[in-house]
């Protein structure tokens, strides 16, 4: 449930590239038409996020995908990426850029479909639908479609799905998500490995009581507990299919067998990758993806500043260029949004992250002090550091607008008053006799971190706190604040959901029973009501009821516990060349949707 | 006795018939500290086949004078005035091209330290042949043959083998011979030898000097021999010129200068020179004091701060009035001829033994 340290850091630092796999959602995002101005873009995404993501049936999962208006096949698309792909083995994929690539080359049991109206549906990908549950959500049955093949033409069977699941237990798989393994083994942490210590490689298999494959096209999961999020789970790129006949273990990470519309022609680690059409991908089996572009020519090492400058110039080959993951860098944002000719070549949307300033509950035990802190902190400082409206949106709670069932709420009035309320805070402190309470404020020594920490510290002093700023190096920031006995009172962090459900946010961040060094409960919240509510809501089988309960719990945490103050919902603006067609922001990938792109002829 | 026909300060015309005639030569260097008057109104003449010795301490202007003759000073930082006439051809103000054609061809120079004066990067043979190839239009092969011939002439054994050696492979004496070979390769009419034997031991010194004399016999060159060592010039020079602080202070034939020197500075030089026959316990008498700064030379006679005989002149004249160097044999000193003679005989000569 934890994101990597670098992921957290990236978001705290600048909100630049996001290292999360699947996330966010809960409705719209942008429609397929390119928007004309920022306000329209923002209001549009906000409206559509109020919608509800649905689990698709057979009809919704049937290929081919709805054509992108005006799309023409052919051509080469240049892709400017910052980071090279470290992992290509589905079992090792978790971070966002690899997840983006995975949507082009890998397929799993389910996936997210974004239609031309901007609606998201979880549909069957290799499977005929998003999953059939029985036994109160404990048993999930999937049937494979006809005509699904690996890049070499071998049909994909239930044997491959079983293999793909079982190999996740092998010791060399350490990077990918662990939800499925934990659900099957019914354990926390990495104890699941005991279930199948060597994976399938020494002939052992998961028992039919957990995973059964009665025929070549049917797979049945028997979870010990109800798992109502299963359709989301299988949409994670980390649970994509691996060719059981060609599994080369560690080496598969460098040369995986493709099942998606594209396959890897050439990968020069750290330099470039070329994707070409997979001839054995049948559009009639895929309701979400297209295969318009002939070749994706991906090059790495492009910082956001570099990709932005190239795309802004729109010269030569930059006209047919795009970046899957780079956002417009903060410095160039004013130029991009200020020039209509450039601005029309952008898409915008949410990232899954919610920023917060944690209050260390082990040290700040007084509720009044925490409340005064929460009121006094000017969230505007963080907002500005992230590039204002193009990089952030003021947060009212810890749950992002990209989650299913999102309700706009601002119980502490933070979004309404981003400058903070020093007077109210001072009054609380005075009344409680806590004026001049000592606060050690740890901040990360990035440019953004230094900027907003000064503003925040000044505001806290004005509210009557005795603030000490403590600078922490960026590469060990999360190691230091992640210690349970750290000596800091307040510090920033950010958390993103793994799929559009609050169940991947509140339990990891606010469950008091998970407090440990490096666990993401950075505020060390241990509240009996929160803990019992988590247990109760996780047992609910009605998704709508669960969603409402999560958001109610969120309000309780924001107002009655105050383990921190939410600052912003992260957003981003992405730019593409003038000859790039079909550019749409996909909130499920937190990036431009690679499967819809085409080269304008 | 073939030289010096006119007084210094009159800036006379170059002497007719003299092979090299220097008239009223001034050499000034601009430095960060000011103008250095390295040569301050010098005149002399030299005939073919004759050897002129120029003696003086370091910094007296001996080398500067001769570099001026060759035109080797950097024109950007050096101001040269006066006349230098070589065989009827005016050299001051001559074009670089003209000078290049003369250098190494009609006039050549032997430098003091053959280790630094020869390029370490090229063979001895090549360095000897270069001027021959350039001035005589010879081919490389001819140049090499000529270099071998010259090496043999200056007494290098097995010249055919040694021609391809580099300078550092030669001993000091051999290097000096090679340098002489290089200077003589085009049979120059004027040979300037700047302290050619200083760095060598005594036996080799003698050989080199003999060699110079022999070569002069053969080629009939005029030679200027620069040295601070009166012992050396006494063996080979016909005439002597004593320089102090950029000026000539005494001149005459070698014999005259050694037997009846007139200038107190010349006396000092003789006194500080060890003699072969003298008692080893006998003390040498160095000239007291240090050579003057050429940035601001003393007024009057430049030697007066170190001179022990200014009282004899009296009236403080030495500190005010600069003495002239008279025509021909003579010295630039305010002492009367009588005084010069009696001081030398009474106090100097006994000390010289």
């Amino acid at each position, binding site marked *: *449930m*934890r994101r*990597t340290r670098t992921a957290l850091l990236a978001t705290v630092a600048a909100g630049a590239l996001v290292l999360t796999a699947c996330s966010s959602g809960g409705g719209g995002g942008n429609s397929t038409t390119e928007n004309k101005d920022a306000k329209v873009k923002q209001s549009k995404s906000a409206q559509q996020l109020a919608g509800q993501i649905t689990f698709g049936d057979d009809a919704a999962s049937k290929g081919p995908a709805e054509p992108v208006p005006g799309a023409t096949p052919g051509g080469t698309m240049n892709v400017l990426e910052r980071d*090279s*792909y*470290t992992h290509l083995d589905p079992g*090792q994929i*978790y971070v966002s850029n690899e997840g983006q690539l995975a949507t082009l080359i890998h397929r799993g049991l389910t996936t997210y479909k974004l239609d031309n109206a901007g609606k998201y549906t979880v549909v069957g990908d290799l499977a005929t639908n998003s999953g059939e549950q029985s036994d109160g959500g404990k048993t999930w049955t999937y049937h494979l479609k006809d005509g699904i093949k690996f890049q070499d033409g071998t049909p994909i069977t239930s044997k491959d799905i079983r293999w793909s699941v079982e190999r996740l237990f092998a*010791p*060399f798989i*350490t*990077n*990918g*998500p*662990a939800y499925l393994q934990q659900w099957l083994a019914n354990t926390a*942490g*990495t*104890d699941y*490995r005991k279930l199948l210590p060597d994976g399938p490689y020494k002939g052992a298999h998961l028992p039919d009581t957990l995973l059964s494959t009665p025929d070549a096209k049917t797979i049945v999961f028997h979870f010990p507990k109800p798992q109502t999020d299963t359709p989301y789970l299988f949409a994670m790129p980390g649970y994509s299919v691996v060719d059981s006949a060609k599994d080369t*273990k*560690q*080496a598969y990470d*460098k040369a995986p067998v493709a099942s998606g519309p594209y396959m890897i022609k050439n990968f020069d*680690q*750290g*330099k470039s990758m070329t994707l070409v059409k997979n001839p054995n991908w049948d559009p009639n089996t895929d309701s979400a993806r297209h295969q318009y572009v002939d070749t994706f020519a991906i*090059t790495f*090492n492009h910082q956001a500043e570099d990709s932005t*400058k*190239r795309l*802004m*110039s729109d*010269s*030569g080959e*930059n006209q047919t260029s795009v970046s899957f993951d780079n956002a417009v860098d903060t410095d160039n944002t004013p130029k991009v949004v200020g020039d209509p000719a450039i601005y029309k070549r952008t898409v915008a949307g949410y990232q899954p992250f919610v920023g917060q300033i944690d209050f260390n509950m082990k040290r700040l035990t007084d509720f009044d002090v925490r409340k005064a802190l929460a009121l006094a902190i000017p969230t505007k400082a963080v907002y500005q550091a992230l590039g204002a409206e193009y990089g952030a949106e003021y947060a009212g709670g810890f749950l992002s607008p990209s989650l299913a069932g999102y309700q706009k709420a601002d119980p502490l009035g933070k979004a309404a008053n981003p400058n903070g309320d020093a007077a109210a805070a001072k009054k609380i402190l005075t009344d409680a006799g806590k004026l001049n309470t000592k606060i050690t404020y740890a901040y990360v020594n990035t440019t953004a971190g230094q900027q907003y920490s000064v503003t925040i510290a000044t505001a806290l002093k004005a509210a009557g706190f005795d603030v000490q700023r403590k600078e922490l190096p960026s590469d*060990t920031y999360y190691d230091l604040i992640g210690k349970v006995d750290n000596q800091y009172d307040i510090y920033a962090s950010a958390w993103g959901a793994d799929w559009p459900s609050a169940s991947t946010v509140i339990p990891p961040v606010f469950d008091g029973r998970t407090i440990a060094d490096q666990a993401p409960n950075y505020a060390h919240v241990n509240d009996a009501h929160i803990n019992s509510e988590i247990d109760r809501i996780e047992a609910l089988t009605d998704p709508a009821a669960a969603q409402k309960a999560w958001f109610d719990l969120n309000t309780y945490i924001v107002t009655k516990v105050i383990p921190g103050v939410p600052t912003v919902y992260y957003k981003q603006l992405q730019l593409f060349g003038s000859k790039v067609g079909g550019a749409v922001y996909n909130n499920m990938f937190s990036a431009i949707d690679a499967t819809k792109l085409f080269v304008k002829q | 006795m073939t030289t010096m026909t006119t007084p210094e300060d009159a800036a006379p015309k170059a002497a007719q018939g003299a092979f090299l005639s220097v008239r009223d030569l001034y050499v000034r260097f601009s430095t960060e500290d000011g103008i250095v008057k390295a040569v301050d109104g010098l005149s002399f003449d030299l005939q073919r086949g004759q050897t002129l010795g120029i003696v003086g301490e370091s910094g007296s202007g001996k080398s500067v004078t001769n570099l001026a003759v*060759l035109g*080797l000073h950097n024109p*950007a930082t050096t101001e040269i005035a006066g006349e230098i006439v070589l065989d009827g051809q005016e050299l001051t103000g001559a074009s*670089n091209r003209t*000078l*290049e*054609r003369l*250098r*190494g061809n009609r006039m*050549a120079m032997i*430098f003091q330290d053959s280790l*630094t*004066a*020869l*390029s*370490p*990067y090229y063979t001895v043979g090549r360095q000897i042949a*270069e*001027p021959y190839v*350039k*001035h005589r239009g010879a081919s490389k092969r001819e140049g090499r043959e000529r270099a071998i011939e010259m090496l043999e002439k200056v007494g290098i054994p097995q010249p055919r083998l040694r021609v391809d050696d*580099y300078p*550092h*492979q030669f001993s000091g004496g051999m290097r000096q011979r090679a340098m002489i070979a290089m200077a003589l390769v085009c049979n120059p009419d004027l040979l300037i030898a700047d302290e050619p034997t200083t760095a060598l031991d005594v036996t080799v010194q003698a050989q080199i000097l003999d060699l110079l004399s022999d070569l002069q016999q053969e080629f009939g060159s005029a030679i200027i021999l620069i040295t601070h060592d009166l012992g050396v010039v006494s063996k080979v020079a016909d005439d002597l010129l004593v320089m102090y602080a950029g000026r000539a202070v005494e001149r005459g034939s070698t014999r005259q200068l050694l037997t009846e020197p007139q200038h107190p500075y010349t006396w000092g030089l003789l006194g500080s020179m060890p003699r072969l026959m003298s008692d080893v316990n006998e003390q040498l008498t160095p000239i007291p004091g240090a050579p003057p700064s050429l940035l601001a030379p003393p007024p009057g006679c430049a030697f007066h701060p170190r001179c022990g005989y200014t009282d004899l002149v009296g009236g403080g004249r030495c500190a005010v009035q600069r003495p002239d160097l008279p025509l021909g044999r003579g010295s630039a000193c305010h002492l009367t001829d009588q005084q010069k003679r009696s001081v030398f005989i009474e106090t100097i000569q006994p000390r010289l033994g």
Partner: protein
Amino acid sequence: MLRFLVRRTLGAVVILLFISAFTFFLFFAIPHDPALLSCGKNCTPDNLKTIHHNLGLDHPVPVQYYLFMVRIFTGHHFAAGNCPAPCFGYSFANSEPVWPTLIDRLPTTLSLALGSMVVFLLFGLGTGMLAAWRRGSAVDKVLSSASLVLSSMQIYFVGPLVLALLVYNNHILDQPKYVPLTQNPVHWFSGLIIPWCVLSILFTANYTRMARSTMIEQLQEEHVRTARAKGMSGAYVFFRYAWRGSLIPIVTILGIDLGSLLGGAMITEWTFQLTGLGRLAIDSVTKTDLPMLMGVMLFSSAMIVLFNILVDAVYAFIDPRIRLS
């Protein structure tokens, strides 16, 4: 000569051993666990332990060092694949074999280094010699001050400026990129011309100043005066005598510069998104990728050491006193 080479090579091996040990142990002095890199979101202590074992980090550091050094020569069969000698192991970050990665990055760095060397030698020595030739003149003053201004320029400033002026805004030159010479010589040239020039700026200024000062120094050497006294022309003396003597300091600095350039020009590669050894070095540091870091460090150290030996060998060609003694 042979004895000289053998002796220097042995010395180089000792230096490289020292550098390797220093790098290796220094790496472990950094309080950062390289296993975190591969730990993903499921970073439990158990998972870390598994990764430590997978990466061989469960041995004591001296044992790890010993194994690393031995495997360079013997090769080793890793889980990620077979690694024949010279074997620097597999990257912690992306499981790529280190040695082939180095070899893969070398052509970019080689092209960048040698190309810019041509540019900075041409311009640096040219202007430096011109300044020395016209010492004290207006030309000299203009060139000297221009080189001073240029030498204070920084690549990370000039690079983006040049890109903005010549590529983004006007598209006079191509977007810098590396195309192998063997694939398309024209694109190789047009893709590297900007990086060459930008990387050369600093060097050009240095070489201008160095060429000027050593030439002036050499022109005052006695043997140069001797050559002039022989009647050799100004140009002949300048180019044959003074120039020959200037070669030694120039070759010395060039050897050091080229050695370090071949280890990767980090800022230039970063600025122009060229994937050479410099880029690899930066990445391996930021990703705490020990095997890659060791590979790059040893490779670039070896380059510097090698070029030092080469320089000494070149001395012998330039200076017969060294050759014949």
